[in-house]
């Protein structure tokens, strides 16, 4: 199978590979897997006080397309508001990377990962708020 230039580029120079502190209240973590292909992907965001994503990191164990999709998403969401990040859709990822039909699930996985990361961050913030409220 022939990979697009962009997929190759994200694989030879993956952006934002790494780990953020899972226990940091400003950090949201998304951990997703695709049993059909056996790939697993972790995507994390750190959100500043204004609700902007100041950093995004990923770690993906899977094929080149899955790595490229998660790398691209971290690039896209950095500097964005949570709302803007939540609107990242798998179709856009697939189009940008020119993913072949058999690899579309990789873009779906990346979308699920950012969704989960945002949901995790919001959950943490809500729990924190509940803690701070007087009983």
């Amino acid at each position, binding site marked *: 199978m022939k990979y697009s230039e962009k997929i190759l580029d994200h694989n030879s120079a993956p952006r934002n590979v790494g780990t953020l502190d899972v226990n940091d209240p400003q950090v949201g973590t998304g*951990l*997703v*897997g695709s*049993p*059909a*292909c*056996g790939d*697993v992907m972790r995507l994390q965001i750190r959100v500043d006080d204004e609700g902007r994503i100041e950093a995004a990191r990923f770690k993906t*164990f*899977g094929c080149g397309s899955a790595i490229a999709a998660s790398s691209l998403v971290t690039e896209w969401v950095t500097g964005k508001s949570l709302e803007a990040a939540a609107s990242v859709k798998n179709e856009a990822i697939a189009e940008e990377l020119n993913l072949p039909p058999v690899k579309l699930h990789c873009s779906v996985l990346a979308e699920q990962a950012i969704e989960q990361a945002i949901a995790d961050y919001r959950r943490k913030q809500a729990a924190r708020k509940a803690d701070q409220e007087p009983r």
Partner: protein
Amino acid sequence: MPDAFDVLHIEPQFVVDRSELERHHRALLAELHPSRQATAPAPAPTDALFAKQGAINAAYQQLSDPLTRAELLLTRQGLSLSSAQSPELVARIFEQRQALEQAVSIRDASAVSNCVGASRARQAQLHSALATHFPQGAAVTLRQTAEIGLILQELRYLNKLIQRGEQALDDLE
């Protein structure tokens, strides 16, 4: 359309007799062999012959692996697996993949082979668990499909992990 059980004349059950499977596989291939045909000299192999051999070999592969065998049995019973995922499973697999890549990155062949070995042991455990979920001669219940679904998912993740580990071991040698 005949499935792998039909092609190889094997009783559609999860527990299959390996030697019976081997025997049927070989006998079916032998029957097709050009030298066994009535005409002399033996006819040249045709595309139709290759297609038949291919179908027999594919069926054999499918029945040899407990994962695909289980999938096939569920299909026969008209059951589809839910796509419900377990976050715990994904987290566990992520940790294992991470440990494997860590071992690969420091070129520690024995650590890599430990990861592969642990996954193989788990695979064997899951295969026995599957056997208990497919009652002999009885249909699988709906409740069981949920558990079977998770086992099959884990097996697929493990396949990928083992494949990756073995490839890394080859590279390290």
